[in-house]
């Protein structure tokens, strides 16, 4: 067949003449034959086939598939040839597939599909698959359609992750209900997912190139965006899709994640991680006041913990206990400066993030102080509510770096206002 030979030529001129002959022979002799035992002539060509197909596995497959386009209705031959190669070339194709083919053939994707299908159904009527894939005949196609469906649903455990997309490709094919008729029709209708379109492009390309004179080198029709059939671009696309999946999962974790694009989504994620780390820091600071660790595991701690409260470490707490004019208190100021200094490195991003959401951080102790109504007059009367407005509304902070912040997520998570965390700064 001319397209086959042309493809072969493109890939390996040395084997060209020899390739045409066995293929044609095989096609002629193996026409309409599905059983392997009947396929005698190929046995003599096995070595030769191995030879020619090992470096050119992709090319040969494409050749086999290209004649399946509509104008050629007598194409069951190559499909028979194709499946007959299974036992011989299974390992080789698999290897090629794993290596990403090294051949930048437009049909590499389709080849890989076939390869994987063959891997999946080693013992079954493997012959059925290539047939269904590319056949233009009605009767055979519908018969083998079931095999395709089964094949696509069958998942081989040791396949790579890319297998999933190949599965979806086959699902797409079966969904498109290979209508026994024209395979390329199915390809032309982009019902199938992306890879279906990929294969369609493959078919089109081979068809288009097949229509040209055999002597021309293989024509590379530039693949449409998102439909590249290069193994590298396929790998790239796979990778991108997996990354997109992960981004979606992250989007659910990060609050306020209306994903507009990946860059802004990443920014959100980064800000959120910084914010969480800052929160941990602040919480560990606030616990100095001796809310500390009276672990329920240790029974004799409470008094000690209470004693700590009175110490300087509890300055924050003291401050928050309703003492709004904290600036006068030296220890408190020192503590505040200390905390401010500690938070200053992360403050910018944290503030940005929070202000963007209308949130603020608040010290736990301050929260309790607020609940005692000393701050109510100054602060937003909505104290119990999840949101505290930013510092600007109430009082100018005596310590410039500090501002009243409260965490919405805390209240959201805990369901109660008491959970709000920290920092000081009335």
């Amino acid at each position, binding site marked *: 067949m001319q397209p086959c030979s042309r493809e072969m030529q493109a890939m390996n001129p040395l084997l060209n003449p020899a390739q045409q002959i066995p293929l044609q022979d095989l096609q002629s002799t193996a026409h309409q034959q599905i059983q392997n035992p009947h396929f005698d002539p190929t046995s003599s060509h096995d070595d030769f086939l191995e030879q020619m197909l090992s470096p050119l596995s992709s090319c040969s497959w494409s050749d086999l598939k290209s004649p399946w386009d509509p104008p050629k209705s007598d194409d069951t031959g190559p499909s028979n040839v194709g499946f007959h190669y299974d036992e011989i070339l299974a390992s080789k194709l698999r290897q090629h597939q794993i290596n990403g083919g090294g051949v930048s053939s437009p049909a590499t994707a389709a080849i890989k599909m076939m390869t994987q299908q063959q891997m999946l159904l080693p013992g079954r009527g493997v012959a059925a698959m290539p047939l269904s894939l590319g056949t233009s005949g009605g009767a055979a196609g519908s018969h083998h359609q079931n095999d395709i469906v089964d094949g696509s649903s069958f998942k081989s455990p040791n396949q790579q992750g890319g297998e999933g997309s190949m599965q979806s490709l086959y699902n797409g094919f079966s969904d498109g209900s290979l209508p026994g008729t024209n395979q390329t029709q199915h390809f032309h209708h982009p019902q199938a997912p992306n890879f279906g379109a990929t294969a369609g492009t493959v078919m089109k390309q081979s068809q288009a190139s097949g229509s040209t004179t055999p002597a021309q080198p293989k024509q590379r029709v530039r693949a449409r965006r998102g439909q590249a059939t290069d193994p590298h671009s396929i790998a790239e696309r796979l990778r991108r899709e997996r990354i997109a999946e992960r981004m979606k999962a992250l989007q659910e974790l990060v609050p306020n994640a209306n994903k507009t694009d990946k860059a802004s989504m990443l920014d959100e994620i980064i800000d959120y991680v910084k914010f969480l780390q800052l929160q941990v820091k602040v919480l560990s600071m606030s616990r100095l006041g001796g809310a500390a660790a009276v672990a329920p595991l240790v029974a004799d701690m*409470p008094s000690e913990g209470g004693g700590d409260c009175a110490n300087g470490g509890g300055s924050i707490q003291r401050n928050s206990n309703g003492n709004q004019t904290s600036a006068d208190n030296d220890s408190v100021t020192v503590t505040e400066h200390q905390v401010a200094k500690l938070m200053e490195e992360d403050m910018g991003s944290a503030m940005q993030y929070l202000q963007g959401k209308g949130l603020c951080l608040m010290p736990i102790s301050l929260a309790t102080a607020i609940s005692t109504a000393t701050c109510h007059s100054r602060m937003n009367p909505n104290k119990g509510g999840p949101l505290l407005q930013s510092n600007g509304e109430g009082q100018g902070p005596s310590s410039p770096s500090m501002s009243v912040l409260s965490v919405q997520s805390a209240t959201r998570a805990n369901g109660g206002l008491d959970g709000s965390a920290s920092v000081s700064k009335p």
Partner: protein
Amino acid sequence: MNKYNPPRMNPSSLRSRFATRFLRSLSEINAQKPTASSSSPTEIFRRYRRIKVAADKSMAYSVRSRRTWSRAMLWKLRTRPCGRRSVKTSTIVRKTRHEKQNKNTTTATTTGEDGVVSGVEADELRELVPGGEAMDLYNLLDETAHYIKCLTTQVQVMKKIADFYSP
């Protein structure tokens, strides 16, 4: 002080594991702290550091070595007290080799393509997530997701603890 009855929760969940460990370490910190020395900023700072380290450590131990970031954090915590050795580089090298076994072979610095993340933000994320320097973007996102989940757990537990114990 009334007995704190922990809510009936899954005893093997991340939250309970972390809470248990953290409370234990907090009690240890309280045990060793001298009574009247916490007024100076340095003392406060030191206590703060100790608590924060305790929190991070308990979180990392709760996750064991299942995650790259927890392994990195544990390593960091182990080597830091012993001085600023240049162990981190060897850690990264080791992890790089280990990561290469599982990760994709693509880099994360491609730009311009639709949906591909720019390298700058990925690097920034790498700095934030412990152990992220040696990971490609794909695994980095995975680690980030788990890290965010653990951080939120940590924050929730710490908030509840502080909330409960603050007068």
